């Protein structure tokens, strides 16, 4: 049996309503769970980039990426292993302000984890931590016992080590016209 592992799928698309639905339907149809999902405008104006993390086999991810690329409004799709990408996640932790003064240990946790305090007010303060899943997870565990009010983590964002060549694809099209 082929082993499953993490793959980061990067999809460059046109900016159109409903494309998110079209992409997620590809995963749904194949009963694939999406580990994380994030999207924003890419380095090219009006071109969007989706970062989708899945845990699956290499042959499985290859087929899914072909199905993604088949969509009319998808410019290009790639898949990479963790070692082929630079990736990070961001997490926010909302804590009671009183705990900052009552539990001196919190200050050490913040310092040791290289986290950043985003805001402090009389009721609560918010810590931000960017890093790998293990880093944000560790901080979550450390803070949990001190009255964590809210916790949220972003999807993975990633850039590939290899070149993606999206501008070249778009330029070739322009020159053909």
């Amino acid at each position, binding site marked *: 049996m082929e082993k499953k592992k993490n793959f980061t799928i990067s999809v460059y698309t*046109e900016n159109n309503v*409903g494309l998110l639905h079209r992409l997620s339907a590809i995963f749904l149809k194949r009963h694939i769970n999406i580990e994380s999902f994030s999207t924003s405008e890419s380095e090219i104006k009006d071109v969007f980039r989706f970062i989708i993390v899945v845990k699956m086999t290499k042959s499985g991810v290859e087929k899914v990426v072909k199905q993604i690329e088949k969509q009319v409004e998808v410019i290009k799709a790639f898949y990479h292993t963790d070692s082929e990408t630079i990736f990070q996640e961001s997490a926010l932790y909302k804590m009671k302000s009183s705990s900052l003064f009552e539990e001196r240990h919190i200050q050490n946790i913040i310092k040791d984890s290289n986290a950043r305090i985003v805001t402090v007010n009389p009721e609560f303060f918010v810590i931000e931590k960017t890093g790998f899943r293990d880093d944000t997870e560790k901080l979550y565990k450390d803070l949990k016992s001190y009255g964590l009010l809210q916790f949220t983590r972003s999807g993975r964002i990633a850039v590939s080590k290899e070149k993606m060549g999206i501008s070249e694809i778009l330029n070739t099209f322009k020159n053909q016209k």
Partner: protein
Amino acid sequence: MKKKKISGAEAVIHSLLNEGVDLVWGYPGGAIMPVYDEFYKFQDKLKHILARHEQGAIHAAQGYARSSGKVGVAIATSGPGATNLVTGIADAQIDSTPVVCITGQVPSHLLGSDAFQETDIIGISMPVTKWNYQITKASEIPEIFAKAFYIAKSGRPGPVLIDITKDAQFELFNYEYSKCKGIRSYNPLPKINNSSIDDAVKLINKAKKPFIVWGQGVILGNAEVEFKSFVEKSGIPAAWTILGVSALPTSHELNVGMVGMHGNYGPNLLTNECDLLVAIGMRFDDRVTGDPKTYANQAKIIHLDIDPAEINKNIKVEVPIIGDCKESLKLITEKIEKRSHEKWISKFDDLMKIEFDKVINSDLNPSKKGLTMGESIIAINEQTNGEAIIVTDVGQHQMVACRYANFIHSKSNITSGGLGTMGFALPAAMGAKMGAMNREVVAVIGDGGYQMTIQELGTIFQLQIPVKIVILNNDFLGMVRQWQQLFFDKRYASTEMINPDFVTIAKGYYLDSERVNDRKDLRPAVERMIKSKKPYVLEICVEKEDNVFPMIPSGASVSDVRLS
């Protein structure tokens, strides 16, 4: 170009005319009424045919597309009108049929308010369309229609849906149309890689037991001529998938029959004996491959397809040739040696003899009293000389018709292959006839599927569309019954039907109709039907519990094909 402002609804008509559309199938309703008002005004230029159900309209558009090679168009209102199209859209998606569907939508200010007849048809149809788009401003209409037709027919064809809010249909704007020449994120014609052509040529030249399996891609790519030259120069025996059949005449000496679950004995068995498999415009569907783990493991495989996503999807191949097979087949044919494979082909002949003795002979020359589906198809062959377009539904009759019908011309076999949509044939046949008025169109339908879209007899009657409808009636959902007999100890759960009098129903629609029970009446009745210039319904009552063989049980290997 017009300077005067026109409504979105009128722009829909002009856009259709600009794309060369002269016929659309549909059903009106509240949210699409402005467009219907324009159909009324433009009825001399653009014919609209009222189906009796939106599913009938979309299947008719599919039949029209399949017989004519043009884009079929279906139109419906919002809500239930739109959802009734979905089965046909899914069917067109999986069988790569170019259709454009237009649906009305509630006014844009009511979107998301659960308004009367509002449904999210964009969301619903997204997984089963090649592309879809919701228009909320009239000014979007020309560009979106141009894109829709371009996407539907280019590359691997498929269905596109355009949803238009009612306010956009009323809105006035300056109309200007230009055809779509390309979309930057969409590459419908991948460039053929010359080195894979060379790799394929090498494999073909040295193969001792090569075998071709072709599919609908040959027809969709208009590559029938190139395909025939390739087959003839290479001398390779060629078998077809159900959607590919009519690309090469049935009588061609290198046409060795059908592959798949109910395909011929030889092609299935020898799939696991060939040393080279050349797959052309087919997608290794599970009904073709049986168990993929045991499929042609001994063979090298060359796969020609226009859709890169089909390469290595179900079966791993050695040489993929991505691109238009009209072009790649030509390149390969130029470079290969002219060969013949008599000894290898004689194996197909030997196995065909076995199949004839064990299956075909009793299908076509039965000794029992009851009529068989097989002899009914032969009677149609005799009367049409293989010139007809045969439209089939789904089930036993479909397999029998495809096994025994004679085809001379391409685009002559219209059936629901991938989705297996019962109810497809009757509306698809009327669409096929409208798409090829100079050809005879014979629909062959089981008694189950016939009753799923029987309402389209109304459309056929009103327009006097001269299709010939053959009901092969065994009073059973025959294919399911066959499986119940073979795999569920004959527990016939909900497969036996007490049917109405189909002749009386046809007569209720003022259609000529008759019923045949006896062998002596079969040929004269088929002859009367084919000679008729009008629509005609012929009910042939066949044996109730006949089975279709050969058969590869679901999940078994192609080499486990059974003759009984």
